[in-house]
C-alpha cells in the first residue's frame, strides 16, 4: 500500500530516548548554473536512538541556527516527519528512510512550540 497522505509518527514510541551525537553534513543550495553555493539549505545531525538501536540521521532546515549540543545530550525532535525514497537496483528496489524535523531542542526545554499537526508530504518516490 502507498499511504499517500503520509505517516504521522509517534516519536516517543518510534525513536525512544534520543541523544545528540554530531553534525553530519551541511547541504548547500545550488546556483542556477548547477554549481554549489555558500548558502546552507539544511543540516543533518546524527542522533543515537534507543528504540531503533542505532544512529539515526535527522535533517533540520537552515533557518534554524546550528546546534552545538554536548555529546550524549538528551534531545527532542519538533514535528518529525519520516518518509522514504526507493532506488531501483538490478534485482528489485532498496528503500531508505529519511527524517526531517522543524527543530531539535534539548529535552524538557521546548523552545519552539510549533503546532503538533505535522503531516508528511505525499510520497516522493525517486
Amino acid at each position, binding site marked *: 500500500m502507498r499511504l499517500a497522505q503520509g505517516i504521522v509518527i509517534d516519536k516517543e514510541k*518510534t525513536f525512544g530516548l534520543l541523544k545528540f551525537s554530531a553534525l553530519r553534513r551541511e547541504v548547500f543550495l545550488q546556483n542556477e548554473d548547477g554549481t554549489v553555493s555558500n548558502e546552507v539549505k539544511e543540516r543533518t545531525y546524527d542522533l543515537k536512538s534507543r528504540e531503533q538501536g542505532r544512529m539515526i540521521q535527522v535533517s533540520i532546515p537552515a533557518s534554524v541556527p546550528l546546534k552545538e549540543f554536548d555529546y550524549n545530550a538528551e534531545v527532542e525532535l519538533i514535528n518529525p516527519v519520516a518518509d522514504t525514497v526507493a*532506488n531501483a537496483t538490478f534485482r528489485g528496489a532498496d*528503500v531508505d*528512510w529519511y527524517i526531517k524535523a522543524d527543530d531539535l531542542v534539548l529535552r524538557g526545554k521546548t523552545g519552539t512550540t510549533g503546532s503538533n499537526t505535522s503531516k508528511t508530504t505525499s510520497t516522493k518516490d525517486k
Partner: protein
Amino acid sequence: MELKYVIPNMEKTFGNLEYAGEGKVEQRRINGRMTTLSRSYNLYSDIQRADDIEVILSQEAGEKFFEHEEKVKLVNARITAEGYKIGERGFTKYILHADDMVKA
C-alpha cells in the same frame, strides 16, 4: 538510513478504520504439516483514501471475523517499508503489522 519500523500516530495517520475483508494467508509446510505464519486483512481508512489498508497479523492473533465496514482498531501497529521497481524506477510499499485487531 535503515529503520526497524516506525510507529504511527494511528489517529492522525489513519483516522477511523473499517473492516473490508480478509486478504492472504501465508502458510508454510513445517514438518510436513501446513502451518499458518500470518494473516492479512484489508481495511478502509478515512484519511488514507487512495488504497485500502492492508494489515498483517501474526498467527498468534488467530483468525478474525468482523462484519463488512465494521469499525475496528489495531493493537501495537508498526510500519515497515519494502521496495519494488517498475522499469528503472523504484517505489515504496508500506507494510503495516499489528499484534491484534479488535472492535473499536
